[in-house]
């Protein structure tokens, strides 16, 4: 019997599209409750990792485990059950154009034939979580980019999945909206114990996710705090991809200290000092 320590595991996973290697014997794990930031340039296979985890595509070789269950050989019908445990936030939100915000968020429950009263309650709760209850009757084309992604997050949260996959949720957004999205991810990690893979190429996202955390203060309000100079207990790791290989897997501090020229170039910060980075 496998001991379930990790929410997601990749063992020697390889994948090629039209003869071009996208992933090269890739292995890593995402622990329960951990947020794993996946970084790398465009076309390095970041989004492919998420699609493999969801079983939307199959690897050429290697094994993938989700919540202790090997999904590599699963047929589409078997994957449906696994996908109930996973929420996916797509790059541009991928909202259903023909459905209102309400119906988009309600989609999963409608498919499960949940009573309408219960659906309504859940949809309102989810939209309140992403602070969008006033947009409930709008159609996706009436929303801004940031709102679409927040609705995407609300939709992914329905059914309280324990694993959430974010596909560049902050790309192309203004810094304030991007921060809002990161804070939502923090809330899910720190309050709901959600494990996640967070694909991004924004350095600011690493700073927020790896150096900040959410707690409830004495009045029960949610407060975002910065780790500052204290011992880092934030449950976040960083993976850096390059040409289908993992060239870095560790903490944010280790990333800033890495000597690899590609990482140094990527961070655009030749002599990074983690203490001063996010202060």
């Amino acid at each position: 019997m496998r001991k379930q320590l990790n929410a997601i595991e990749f063992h020697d996973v390889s994948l090629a599209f039209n003869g071009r290697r996208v992933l090269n014997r890739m292995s890593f794990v995402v622990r329960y409750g951990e947020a794993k930031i996946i970084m790398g340039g465009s076309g390095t296979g970041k989004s492919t990792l998420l699609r493999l985890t969801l079983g939307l595509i199959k690897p050429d070789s290697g094994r993938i485990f989700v919540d202790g269950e090997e999904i590599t050989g699963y047929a589409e019908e078997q994957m449906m059950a696994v996908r109930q445990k996973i929420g996916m936030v797509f790059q541009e939100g991928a909202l259903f154009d023909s459905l209102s915000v309400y119906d988009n968020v309600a989609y999963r429950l409608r498919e499960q034939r949940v009573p309408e009263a219960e659906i309504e309650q859940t949809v309102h709760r989810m939209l309140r979580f992403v602070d969008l209850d006033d947009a409930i009757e709008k159609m996706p084309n009436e929303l801004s980019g940031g709102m679409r992604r927040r609705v995407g997050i609300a939709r992914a949260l329905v059914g309280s999945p324990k694993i959430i996959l974010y596909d560049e949720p902050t790309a192309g957004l203004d810094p304030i909206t991007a921060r809002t999205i990161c804070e939502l991810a923090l809330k899910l990690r720190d309050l709901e114990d959600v494990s996640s893979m967070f694909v991004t190429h924004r350095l600011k996202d690493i700073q927020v996710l790896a150096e900040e955390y959410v707690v409830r203060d004495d009045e029960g309000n949610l407060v975002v705090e910065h780790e500052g100079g204290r011992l880092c207990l934030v449950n976040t790791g960083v993976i850096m991809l390059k040409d289908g290989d993992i060239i870095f897997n560790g903490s944010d501090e280790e990333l800033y200290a890495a000597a690899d020229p590609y990482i140094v170039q990527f961070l655009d910060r030749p002599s990074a000092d983690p203490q001063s980075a996010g202060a």
Partner: protein
Amino acid sequence: MSLIIRGITQIQEITLLTWRVLRGIFRKPFYLRETIVQMDVLGVGSVVIILLTGVAIGAVLALNSASTLKRFGATGVTGQLVTLSMVREIGPLLACIMLAGRVGSGIAAELGSMLVSEQIDAMRALGTDPVKKLVTPRVLALVIVAPALTVICDGAGVLGGVFVSISLMNQSAGVYLGSVRDALDFNEIVGGVIKPLIFGFIVAIVGCYMGLSTEGGTVGVGRSTTRSVVISSITIILSNFVLTRLILALLLER
């Protein structure tokens, strides 16, 4: 060579999709509401253009045939000629090629855009099989609606013929309609409805397949749309020959 391989691969994939659609009809969950919505969007939405084309073609048929028949003093069978042409060939072909243009293209464009904007992936991620949710209702809707639209097209054609015969050829409506009645028997009508059943299926499955196999962003959506119209129209016209042969042998020439 690669073109041949691509063609064979596409036929294989369309066959697989057909199999998944047929299997989906009998397995839960059932999407009855989607099917009815599609019947409305694809079918009811097409009634006006089908009526218009039917009337126009029926009128032209009467116009052409009546002048020829007049030389043999046989203008009395104009109604029969128009009706048989409409019910056997022109009605099913015209209605379903119009459907390929109006509806097949729409299906390919809609599913193609959903694919490139990751909505199909989102659907799968949310635990829904897109074939059952999107393809099966469209196929069912068109298989039901295409024969109905063909009957409407046939009727419109006959009416178009009546209009021309009375107003331009100075025939009596009684003579025309009498010859229409002579032309129609049960097998004729059944034969005329079998064809659009198959054609409707072709339009839906080709449109869905082309949409779901879209590659290359919005340009790809345009390409899929064009391909769906071209391939379904050609398939309809080619299969029409085989179907006509079968229907003649099994129903009409016994």
